[in-house]
């Protein structure tokens, strides 16, 4: 009994000290000058533009990631082909890479001095320092999320029903939509939530490839750094509350998904 009390106390102390208080500090600092200042800071045109760009990035990145994640999980779970393991490792690699290094890699290849970026430049196509660059690195950092959640569910659900449906004359697309998809809906939703959170919040990689144009290529996490460096602390924390709220929404959604489907492979 002693152990139980001590362990719970330790766990709670740790989470309050390291997790709850920082978030509480964001809200306290954001509202330090009253709700009027908060509203003014959040509706400031540059911050609004940053919110818009961030939402737009997520709207592009997440659907692409879903399509990719489904395709990858399907191929890896249902077929045996040479290089299957290598493919799995490659998809997971972005997890192990520092966001700054990710940004660097993209600059080296897709920047104006890289082989791909350099070849496209005469055609007037530019990939870095604009929305394309932000989207590309966001795709990189969110790469494993959907695949990672869907793959275990797909492996568990087995092929029998799909075979049966095929035998009964369903088309491939019908099988996928009517048989496979219902089995993996919640992992898919969960993966998409994680990918959204990451796409919205990515800082390091985006900071390397964004042109840092105020009101144009500043995503919300970058705008926070900018405001903070301008001694505009209240505005920085106000912008941070927007992202913190989104993070909390992510957690609530996770809770809902968990409640609906309790058996979920628990990995962040």
């Amino acid at each position, binding site marked *: 009994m002693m152990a139980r009390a001590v362990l719970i106390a330790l766990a709670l102390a740790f989470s309050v000290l390291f997790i709850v208080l920082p978030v509480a500090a964001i809200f306290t600092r954001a509202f330090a000058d009253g709700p009027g200042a908060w509203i003014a800071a959040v509706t400031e045109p540059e911050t609004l533009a940053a919110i818009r760009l961030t*939402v737009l990035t997520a709207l*592009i990145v997440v659907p692409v990631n879903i399509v990719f994640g489904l395709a990858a999980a399907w191929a890896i779970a249902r077929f045996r082909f040479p290089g299957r393991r290598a493919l799995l490792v490659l998809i997971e690699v972005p997890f192990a890479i520092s966001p700054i290094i990710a940004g660097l890699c993209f600059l080296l290849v897709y920047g*104006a001095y890289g082989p791909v970026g350099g070849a496209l430049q005469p055609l007037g196509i530019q990939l*870095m320092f604009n929305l394309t660059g932000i989207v590309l690195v966001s795709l990189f950092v969110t790469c494993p999320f959907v695949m990672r959640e869907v793959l275990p569910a797909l492996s568990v659900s087995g092929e029998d029903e799909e075979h049966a449906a095929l035998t009964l004359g369903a088309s491939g697309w019908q099988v996928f939509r009517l048989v496979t998809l219902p089995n993996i809906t919640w992992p898919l939703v969960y993966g998409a939530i994680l990918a959204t959170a990451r796409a919205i919040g990515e800082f390091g990689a985006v900071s390397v490839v964004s*042109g840092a*144009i*105020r*009101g144009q290529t500043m995503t919300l996490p970058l705008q926070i750094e900018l405001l903070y460096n301008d001694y505009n602390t209240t505005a920085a924390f106000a912008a941070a509350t927007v992202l913190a709220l989104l993070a909390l929404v992510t957690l609530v959604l996770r809770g809902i998904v968990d409640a609906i489907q309790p058996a979920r492979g628990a990995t962040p």
Partner: protein
Amino acid sequence: MYRHLALAATMATGLAAGHAQAQQTEILNVSYDIARELYAAINPAFLEQWDGEGELTINQSHAGSSTQARAILQGLQADLVTFNQVTDVNILAENGFVAEDWQDRFPNNASPYYSLPAFMVREGNPQGVEGWADLARDGVSVIFPNPKTSGNGRYTYLAALAWAEEEFDGNEEEVQSYMRDFIGNVEVFDTGGRGATTTFVERGIGDVLITFEAETLNISEETPGYEVVVPAQSLLAEFPVAIVDRVAENRGTEEIARAYLDFLYTTEGQEIVASFNNRVNDESVMEANADRFPEVELFTVEEEFGSWAEAQEAHFASGGSYDQLLRN
């Protein structure tokens, strides 16, 4: 929600289509780190008197000016630059982004205003910092931005070096020893001037911040607890401007870009520039602000180091004197 989606979609098409549509014109002024407030004030004043057709938006980007120059080389679509150093415009000229004769295209070697590296110390000047000699003393901790990424930092480095050359009458051993102590006293090299100010003011690191006089005055006016020390000798810091022809030609914004830069030289423009504590060449404006700008003996890069290109090569190129001081 749908409204947001629509907004996002509008923005997507806007970004994709770029500036093909007329009427709505945007130009991008890519500038150095600490000029944010200055151009935030210039832009509305310029738009006020601008009589071109359609709607004009002026976008700003600020960072260390060398970082900015490299971003332009790598594709940042700048219509014009307002930098704090000739070298950074020269890089653009060498790569064909800016006309070779850019310095002849606007008055005063294309520098609408100037400043100089000055010191900001904490209230009461506890370390008694009065001049460059004090910065090499034991126990004085110094903040200034990275000379490799920031024009501001390069001015500071060269100002200290120029002062030491004069002070020690060209005795290289003494100059080296001074520079080693001076660089050894630097606590943090931020990539831009604003980062350095944040380090000094917000993080409370360092006894002395070295940055442009304009920044020291702006900060001390807004934040209590600091004092400005203008050393008796310093280095002339010019703020060159140029149209990025390659981009402006593409986007058809040359005329607007020129009008924008011309505006900086008008009396109204010079008044705004001076109100942010930059020194200007307009004599009447300078006279009106004389009390803010003490007399300083200003070295120039050309006199002391031959040219910017030579200074760059000897001190800031890979393996130059700055690298060697850092490695030792």
